[in-house]
């Protein structure tokens, strides 16, 4: 694919644990975004990190970006059952003029 390969494909954890999802991409980017999708619903934008940023926080979310490795990670701390969803990274790749989404990581948080 062009961009946005997430791993793992699926992740199962207990409430209170941290969840880490990774995204790798192939070409230079302007920014990288993470979205969340509850089952059978639309996507919700979570956070955007620009290519000149290395780390960004939003509540219990922490996103890192390593442009030298062409990778990003999304960390959800102190997970809750309500965090159960699929998480997608999307890259604003230079020259593409659109967002390119990965296949997503399915996160299951068990009470």
């Amino acid at each position, binding site marked *: 694919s062009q961009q946005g390969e997430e791993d793992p494909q699926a992740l199962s954890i207990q409430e209170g644990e941290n969840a880490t999802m990774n995204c790798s991409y192939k070409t230079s980017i302007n920014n990288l975004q993470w979205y969340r999708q509850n089952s*059978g619903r*639309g*996507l919700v934008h979570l956070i955007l990190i620009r290519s000149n940023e290395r780390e960004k926080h939003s509540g219990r979310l922490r996103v890192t970006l390593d442009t030298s490795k062409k990778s990003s990670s999304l960390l959800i701390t102190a997970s809750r059952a309500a965090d159960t969803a699929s998480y997608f990274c999307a890259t*604003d790749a230079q020259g593409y003029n*659109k*967002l390119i989404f*990965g296949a997503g990581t*399915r996160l299951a948080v068990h009470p």
Partner: protein
Amino acid sequence: SQTIHQWPATLVQPVGSPLSLECTVEGTSNPNLYWYRQAAGRGLQLLFYSVGIGQISSEVPQNLSASRPQDRQFILSSKKLLLSDSGFYLCAWSIWGSYNEQFFGPGTRLTVL
């Protein structure tokens, strides 16, 4: 505040029948509009996007077409559905001039039998 509507929520159609999915946005003017398709357990494939009334860009040559008859209305159509058109169709918008931070509708689950 802005809201985005899609209908219908679910649709079951026979092969060869026509299709019309509608998306409307409220609370913003001159948005960029997008149609995506999501296969089961997969990421999103951009089908069409529009930067203004009557301006449609197609990303993937296929059996579908899109139209934007009004500023905040985006329609996805087909004259004859194929089995491979089954999927989850998502409409999204972003502020004019930027395709980042897109806001998605609730989606339409289309099953072609």
